[in-house]
């Protein structure tokens, strides 16, 4: 394999600064939404434990937290990452950067509208977002923008060789609108209750696997190679990671309805094919670890790379836990319990946030011309996120197992009928764990505040440093729709 420099190096002096402002704007807005999402998730955990005291039901609070972290933070930030790497890997200017800005403004506004719709009770309660059907249409349109920009930019590429990040970007940008289309289709009148339940789980699992893990890992491949100036250890391992994640998309979602009204074969298929999830996560983590071999000491001054590595490792843990619970024998205890809440929380607020930080902390100085305002804030983010999210995950996992076993034991011993008056007693042990989870949620929120402080502080009070400016080779190429084919 002939080594080549990518089109990272091509540019027309000055022209790239505007392109990079698009990415910087996405990082900034994403940071604000992460703090909002963290606060809403904290409120949701409070509602779960102190249902009688909460002014908003857990269902609505959870939906609001989900839409904020998934769309407001993860879609916005990772889209910004895509806009950051695309010109650097293709040598082409970002296609219609004004469309990217429109997407950012539209997505941000729509998230706010979504929150209002849910809290006012206009939604349909379908997880994970609980939106009214008419809000799905603009959302679908907005989620198509990263796909359009990605493919049109790649179509006009100067660099004919693909670094592995491009696969992940193409995959994530393509899968995201398709996933949402499927989720939207769950609102169609002919879709049965079972179909609707499967659709909701399909979307949630797919979002985590096909967007968060895929795009987050792919962007981190670029970050680690670029920042440390070391070559990727194994392109083949990255390929295994990419296609395995694509294959694993839905199985841990459908596995949550094990023994439910779906056909029996789905349980076995989900368990078997769900193994692709930890394989994909492990392949990416291994690939990066091999790449870093002999260079670990450099991570001391690279908190963003540390974030990404932590995100990949936490991703392996999440994937293994999800795959483990997909087996019917385990699912008989864990299905329908807080166990799955732990998986989703860890994937979104842990893996997603850490992988996003892995990109943002390293890319922001390059696109803003300002150094990180402080290395302490990114380090605080890493520390409190791992402790907080890890703690919440452990508590929710334990709460799920406790309640799962309680149902089984209760029914076996006829101690109570779990659907009736004995419910509170049966689930009582889990309540303590939910309370501890709330405490760890506060720690995680401190980490989220540190993330926002690091990002916003960089562009406001960060020390001015030499800025990386893209220089495009095709000086006269029109910025808009002209393809170079």
């Amino acid at each position, binding site marked *: 394999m002939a080594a080549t420099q990518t089109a*990272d190096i091509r540019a027309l002096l000055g022209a790239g600064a505007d392109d990079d402002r698009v990415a910087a704007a996405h990082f900034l807005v994403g940071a604000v939404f992460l703090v909002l999402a963290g606060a809403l998730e904290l409120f949701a955990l409070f509602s779960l434990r102190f249902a009688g005291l909460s002014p908003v*039901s857990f269902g609505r609070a959870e939906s609001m937290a989900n839409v904020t972290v998934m769309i407001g933070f993860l879609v916005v930030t990772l889209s910004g990452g895509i806009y950051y790497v695309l010109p650097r890997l293709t040598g082409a200017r970002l296609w219609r950067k004004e469309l990217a800005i429109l997407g950012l403004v539209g997505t941000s506004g729509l998230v706010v509208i979504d929150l209002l719709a849910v809290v006012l009770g206009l939604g349909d309660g379908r997880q994970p977002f609980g939106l009214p059907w008419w809000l799905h249409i603009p959302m679908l349109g907005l989620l198509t923008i990263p796909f359009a920009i990605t493919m049109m930019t790649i179509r006009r590429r100067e660099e004919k060789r693909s670094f592995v990040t491009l696969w992940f970007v193409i995959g994530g940008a393509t899968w995201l609108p398709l996933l949402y289309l499927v989720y939207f289709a769950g609102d169609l009148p002919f879709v049965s209750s079972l179909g609707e339940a499967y659709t909701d789980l399909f979307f949630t699992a797919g979002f985590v696997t096909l967007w968060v893990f895929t795009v987050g890992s792919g962007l981190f491949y670029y970050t680690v190679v670029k920042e440390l100036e070391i070559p990727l250890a194994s392109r083949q391992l990255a390929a295994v990671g990419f296609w395995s994640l694509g294959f694993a998309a839905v199985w841990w979602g459908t596995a949550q309805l094990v023994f439910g009204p779906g056909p029996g074969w789905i349980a076995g298929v989900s368990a078997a094919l769900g193994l692709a999830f930890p394989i994909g996560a492990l392949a990416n983590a291994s690939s990066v670890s091999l790449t870093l071999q002999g260079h670990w000491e450099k991570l001391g001054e690279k908190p963003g790379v540390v974030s990404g590595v932590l995100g990949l490792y936490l991703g392996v843990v999440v994937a293994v836990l999800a795959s483990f619970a997909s087996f019917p024998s385990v699912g008989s205890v864990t299905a329908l319990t807080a166990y799955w809440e732990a998986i989703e929380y860890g994937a979104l607020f842990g893996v997603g946030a850490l992988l996003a930080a892995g990109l943002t902390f390293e890319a922001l100085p390059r696109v803003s011309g300002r150094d990180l305002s402080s290395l302490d804030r990114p380090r605080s983010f890493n520390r409190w996120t791992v402790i907080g999210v890890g703690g919440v995950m452990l508590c929710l996992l334990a709460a799920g197992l406790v309640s799962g076993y309680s149902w089984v034991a209760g029914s076996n011993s006829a101690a109570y009928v779990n659907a009736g008056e004995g419910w509170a007693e049966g689930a009582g042990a889990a309540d303590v764990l939910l309370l501890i989870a709330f405490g760890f949620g506060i720690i995680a929120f401190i980490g989220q505040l540190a993330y926002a402080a690091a990002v916003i502080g960089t562009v406001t009070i960060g020390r001015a440093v030499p800025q990386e400016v893209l220089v495009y080779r095709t000086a006269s190429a029109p910025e808009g729709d002209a393809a170079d084919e």
Partner: protein
Amino acid sequence: MSELSAAAAAALGIPEAIVERSAAARATETGMTVDEVLEVWAGGGDIPTAAAPPIPEEVAEEPEAAEAAPDEGVPPSPPPAVLPPAGEETVPPSPAAPSGGETVSGKPPVLVGEADNPMAVLVGVVALFVAVFLVGLVGPALPAENPGARSSELPYSEAALRGQHVYQSVGCASCHTQMARPVVADVGLGAVTLNDSNQVLGSRRFGPDLSDVGSRVSASQIEGVITGLGEHPSLSLSPGDLDDLVAYLLESQTMEAAPEEPADEEGAAEEEPAES
């Protein structure tokens, strides 16, 4: 300063905003003031740096990449500038200039790629999605035959169907399932749910299962829970929505005997107005 920066921008041929940021950086590095830096740049001069800014790995490029570029007539481009280069003399030589496979920088290229077709990746990801969609979603969601056995579809009244919408919009399904499974844990919940159920199945059970709740409790008990008795959150519903929701839950009875035997007299009495 704006005049100075504009003049410097014109002299350097780069955007003014970048010039200002770069001047601040250069001033910090050299101990000069920003205005002094801008003055020098505006006059076309250069300011030596204590340590030359690092030229990242971007400097290196193999000739194949340049040959692959369609625009061979266009002069080769400079590397990504670490601004300000303070004049053309500090701009590193063109990366496309080396011949015979030489690289400008001693650092090896790290963003290694292979010639391929990204559109093939696109086709692959779409095909994979379709396959997973069909097997993982459409397949299990298709209605299966329940030959002569029984149905889980309940004959809800108009009020109950309105109540089902309330049930969904409030987010009840985030904590309650309406799905009894053929497992030990669900013994006593009600009839096992089949795939033609028209209840809101849900996927979390932080509270009791409600598939057969109408067989167990009365209308007044349901209303009491919804309005905040016990540990259940108090739901702020209009009287109409409350009645509809109570109707939906009361009519959620999956056990065959349940419709003929309401849980108690009070429940039966209050079911009437809810449906009217």
